[in-house]
Each structure stands twice: as structure tokens, then as C-alpha cells.
């Protein structure tokens, strides 16, 4: 059984007199031990709400959470994170489950020294106090690459640079070697060179500790560089789930296809128009009436509006390549996809997501915006061959 298995997670916001909003409407995915799983989608698709629901950090009032999220703890028990009591959840958070947030400045308490913010978690979960806690905290800061850690312990968040702050947050998150680390857009607030360093660091820690990583991002470059498997979210549901290579080689859902197609290329002729997905996330329909993406879809057929499409294995797809679409795209990746660093061969596509982990390392996030020099012009046609 997986480390974390999320089944039909649904989160509805609303209260007395307010219109209800389904932020997440039936998300299912699983994370195996030591695996890096991506949760990708645009703003408002329910990525962050999913992570907060798993951590039990949603507000108490005005939120309804449904579904199950079975998590295997270090002691071998399996618990449902969504129904677990508050104090039991507190015991899990920080030790078994940890989270890294998007904005490192606002996520650190401005009036408490970094040292205290690191040691408090050691005191709470590992019983370390005083000198021992400070020593371990310095060790943690050193491990995440913060120079002169003993001095940094006494400093406050505003005295650290953006990258340092994110490193400090990561140090707190990995302080107790959690089994699952949730990273909610950990690099969005950072500039590109720092992004690369932070992703590299996360990868190292995950490899060292055998921690599983749930990577929540809108950045396809991050996904291409890090994730073993990817779940693409749209309007609160997973619309495509696949290994990294099958997804980038042959995105089957029109939304995923459109996302990859919208990445601008450096080698495109000047003046060539960008290639966006038309409409906005507001042009949607309720999932029970049909596919929420239908109003924006270029591959729309009448069948799209006959009830909720099911997440099902892609015909002639790789193992574990599921798609929620009645008319999936079968033509391979869009012309412009350049995120994977080398041309993908049909054999690799067929072999599923078990590619060598070094495959996407080199460029990492730098390739994210499609800014790296092009390496895979031919990947599209080859993959679809």
C-alpha cells in the first residue's frame, strides 16, 4: 500500500448565506515512499487547498471536507488524515508530515529569531532543549546550505535573503525527517537561480532521507525536473495522471496538451504569437454536467457534456497513464514542448515513468520557463511515432 493514498478528496467552502464553492471536487492520487509526486494546475484549480486539507490546516468554520486520505505512519498504522483528531494530527505534523510554503517571508514569524523557530519544533517532537537544541538547529541550517549557521540562529527573518528564508523553512520541515513532505509552490516567490538551488536541495534531502515529496506547482519546468509521477488538476479534479515521461511525451488530456503547448520557445521566430489556452478558468461547467474544461476545449465533442467523464487508463498509453477525457489527444506532444532535456524515444514512453532519476536533473527549473536553449525540437514527432 502507498504511503499516502488520497481518495475522492472534496473540499467545499461556504457558510450561512454564502454561495458554496467546490474548491476540490474529488481528487484521488497516491504517493509511494520515497517518490516525488507532482500536483500541477493553474491558480484556483485546488492545488493548495488539497495540501492544506491533507495537513489539517483548513479553517475550522465554513469548510466541508469529504473523501479519505489514508496515511501510513512510521509505526505502521494507517490513519485517515481527514478525520483524525486535532491532537493526533498535531503529533503527526512536523514529525511524519511536513510542509513548505510558497512565500518564505510571510511564512516566517517576523518577531521571533530563526533559531527559536527551528528549535521549537525540535523541542516539541524530539524533546531537545537548550544547548542541544541549538546545536541541532545549527546542524540543520548547515545541512540546508545556510553559511555561518550559529550566527544565523540569532537573526530574524528580515535579516535573511529570500533564498535563505526558504532554506530555513526547509530546515524546519525536515527537522524530524518526515515521511511525507508537501511543498506548496516552494520556488514561486524566488528568482530563477535561487529556484534551481532550492529544488536541488529538496531533491538531495528527499534522496537522503527517503522522504516522499508531494510537489505542488504551476511550473511545468519544476515538474519536468523533479517529479516521478504527475497529476494534472483542473477545476478541482485530476484530469490526467501519468509518469513524467509519458505525460510530457504524449499529454492526452486537451488541458495538459494545451498547457505544454502554451510554453513559449526561445527559438521561435520573432513576432510569432503565443499559444495560450483560450478562455479562463472561470469558463467552466459543473463536473456533474460534463467535463469542466469543455468550454475551453479544442477537442470538444457532444459526448463531453454527458455526465462526469471518468479517470480511466489511456487506450494504448503507458502503464499508469490515466486521463479524464472522452476524446483524448492521441497525436503526441504539442510542437513547442521542450521541457524534457533530451528527445524522448518511443521505447521510453512505453516503459512508463521509471526513467533514470538523473534524466531531468541538469537543467531543472532553468528550463522551466522554456528559457534554456532548445534541446528537443524533434521530441514531438519522435514520441508520437
Amino acid at each position, binding site marked *: 500500500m502507498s504511503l499516502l493514498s488520497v481518495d475522492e478528496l472534496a473540499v467545499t467552502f461556504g457558510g450561512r448565506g454564502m454561495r458554496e464553492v467546490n474548491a476540490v471536487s474529488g481528487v484521488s492520487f497516491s504517493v509511494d515512499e520515497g517518490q516525488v509526486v507532482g500536483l500541477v494546475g493553474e491558480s484556483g484549480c485546488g492545488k493548495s487547498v488539497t495540501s492544506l486539507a491533507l495537513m489539517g*490546516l483548513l479553517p475550522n468554520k465554513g469548510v466541508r471536507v469529504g473523501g479519505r486520505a489514508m496515511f501510513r505512519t512510521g509505526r505502521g498504522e494507517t490513519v485517515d488524515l481527514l478525520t483524525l483528531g486535532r491532537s493526533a494530527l*498535531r503529533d503527526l505534523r512536523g514529525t511524519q508530515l511536513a510542509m513548505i510554503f510558497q512565500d518564505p517571508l510571510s511564512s516566517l*514569524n*517576523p*518577531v521571533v529569531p530563526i533559531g527559536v523557530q527551528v528549535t521549537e*519544533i525540535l523541542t*516539541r517532537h524530539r524533546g531537545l532543549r537548550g544547548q542541544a537544541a541549538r546545536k541541532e538547529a545549527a546542524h540543520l541550517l548547515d545541512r540546508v546550505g545556510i553559511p555561518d549557521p550559529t550566527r544565523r540562529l540569532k537573526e530574524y527573518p528580515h535579516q535573511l535573503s529570500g533564498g535563505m528564508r526558504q532554506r530555513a*523553512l526547509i530546515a524546519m520541515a525536515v527537522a524530524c525527517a518526515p515521511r511525507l513532505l508537501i511543498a506548496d509552490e516552494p520556488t514561486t516567490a524566488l528568482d530563477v537561480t535561487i529556484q534551481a538551488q532550492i529544488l536541488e536541495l529538496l531533491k538531495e534531502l528527499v534522496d537522503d532521507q527517503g522522504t516522499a515529496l508531494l510537489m505542488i506547482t504551476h511550473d511545468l519546468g519544476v515538474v519536468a525536473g523533479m517529479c516521478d509521477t504527475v497529476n494534472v488538476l483542473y477545476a478541482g479534479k485530476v484530469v490526467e495522471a501519468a509518469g513524467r515521461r509519458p505525460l510530457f511525451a504524449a499529454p492526452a488530456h486537451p488541458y495538459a496538451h494545451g498547457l505544454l503547448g502554451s510554453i513559449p520557445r526561445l527559438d521561435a521566430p520573432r513576432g510569432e504569437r503565443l499559444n495560450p489556452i483560450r478562455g479562463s478558468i472561470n469558463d467552466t461547467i459543473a463536473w456533474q454536467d460534463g467535463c469542466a474544461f469543455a468550454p475551453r476545449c479544442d477537442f470538444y465533442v457532444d459526448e463531453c457534456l454527458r455526465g462526469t467523464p471518468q479517470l480511466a487508463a489511456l487506450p494504448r498509453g503507458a502503464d499508469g497513464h490515466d486521463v479524464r477525457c472522452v476524446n483524448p489527444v492521441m497525436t503526441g506532444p504539442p510542437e513547442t514542448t521542450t521541457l524534457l532535456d533530451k528527445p524522448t524515444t518511443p521505447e521510453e514512453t512505453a516503459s512508463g515513468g521509471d526513467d533514470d532519476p538523473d534524466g531531468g536533473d541538469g537543467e531543472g527549473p532553468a528550463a522551466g520557463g522554456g528559457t534554456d536553449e532548445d534541446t528537443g525540437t524533434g521530441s514531438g514527432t519522435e514520441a508520437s511515432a
Partner: protein
Amino acid sequence: MLRLIVRRLLQLIPTLFGLTILLFLWINRLPGGPASALLGERATEADRRQIEAALGLDEPVWIQYGRWMERLFQLDLGTSVQTGQPVWEEFTQRFPATVELALTAILIAVVIGIPLGYFAARRRGSWLDVTAVSGSLIGVCIPVFFLAFLLRALFAVNLGWLPSVGRQSTGIDATEVTGFFVLDGLLTGEWDASWDAIEHLVLPGVALASIPLALIVRITRASVLEVLGEDYVRTAESKGLNQRVVRGRHVMRNALLPVVTTVGLATGSLLSGAVLTESVFAFGGIGSFIQTAIDGRDYPVLMGFILFIALTYVFINLLVDLAYSVIDPRVRVN
């Protein structure tokens, strides 16, 4: 920290210096000047000249100012026109009462206001929250003297639980050391005197606390609500910390910043005398003394009093700034 204090104290000098000039010019430019203010409307020109010569008012303004400043440095604020006593002595007799009352009021406001505001924010929308918010609105709206009368009528006159007037019961044989009766009782071991003084402080203290209490409740509530939504509180929760640590270290420490300012300002205004409350309870503080000084155009007293208020505010502002730099490292000077 010490350097910060010294620097801030040095910065006070020009402020106070400017204040003395303004104050002196104001008194000097009053219609008719101090002399006719002293003598009244029917004074003859000869009388006026005589008193001006006696007080040195016929000399150039800057010489008068110099003299006044010279005396000020010797803590000589002049003589009260009404009582004939040195202003400094009049003040030192009455300040302890005012300070005791102000501190009682601010203590009541802080001890009740901060927890109330905090819990109102945590249980937003509950009956506690609604009561706290509407109660604080009433607290601001009720005139203090009216509340003072109500309290006195109910708890002192009708129920007889607490004394109705004064700072001390007449039969008490208390030794006076500092003039702060509660403190005196503690210093000399006369517990009954201390307790008696506290009993006398309760009703005027509660009446006077109403407005600062209302402000503190509101500001604490708003501030806690804001902080509860901050990302760093979520981070603290995500670390699985105990509720106590999350609330104390991560919520309250940040939420207290605006509250500190409010408490400082409220303390300043309370220390400058609560005329009405002191009158209702015949408390004998500086407030009622100033009231008669204004009526009687007792300029030396008024000048001394204005200087005192200014000093109080400046000093409290300094304390607030220091408190800020203790709580918030971002405003700390390196």
C-alpha cells in the same frame, strides 16, 4: 538597548525646549497679559504697572524667558495665585493620587481588555465576541462622569460594598511615606491601610477604565484576527506545535504591537488628570486642582501642568518605542 535609550533621551531635549518657548509665548501673548489676568478687569493702570514690575514683566520677553527657564531648572514653577503655595508643592501633593488612579484604571483595562479581545477574536461570531464588541461600543459611548455616578450610587450608596468618596477612610491611622497610599501601606507593613486605599480606588478606577478598556478590547480583537490569518501562524501550526506555543509565541507577540501603542496613549491621557471622575469621587488628584486653576486663571499652575503633561506624553512615547523595539526586531536600531 542602553544606547537607544540614551539617544532617545537626547532627542527629547529639543522637543521640550521648543515646548517651553511655545508655552511661554502663549502666556505672554494672552490678551492683557498675565498682570491683568491676575488683577482682573477693574485694575487700574498703576496697579498693573506695579505688579508687572514686581513680577519682572516689564522687561524684554527673552529676559523673562531666561529667568523662567532658570527657575525651571531649579524645579521652581512659581507660586500658585490661588493658594499662595509653591506650584511644585501643590503638584507633588496631588500627583500620587492621580498616578495611583491612572495606573489602577490602566491595569484594569489591560488585564480585562487583552484577554477579552483575544478570546473575542478566537471565537469570532460567538456570544462572547458579540458581547465584547457591543460592550466596548457602550463603554466608549457612556460619559465617564455618568458611569462614575452610576457606580457610586449602586456599589457605594445602595449596596454599601465600597467607599463612596476620598482616597482613604477617615479613621485609618496610616503613615505617609511616598504619598502613594497603597505603596505606603506595603512599605510600612500597614496592610489594612493598603487594602483601604485599594477599596477606595476600585470605583473611580473602573469608571476611568471604561474608555481605555473598550479601545483595548477592540484593538486587540482586530489585531488578533489579522494575525490569525497570517502565513506564519499556519507555518507554526504545520510544525505541530502545542496550542500554547502557537498562541503565545506566534499569535500574541505579533498581535500586541498595536495594543502597546494604545495602552501608551491611554496611560498618557489618564495621567494628565481625570477631572470629572476625580470630582465625583472627591479623589483630590491633580484633575480637580487644575479645574479650579483654569477657573481662577492661575497661570503658574497651568504652565506647570502643561509642562507636566508634555513630559508625561514624551516619556510614555519613549516607553512605547522601547517596548516596540523589545517586541519587534524590525524597528530595532543596530
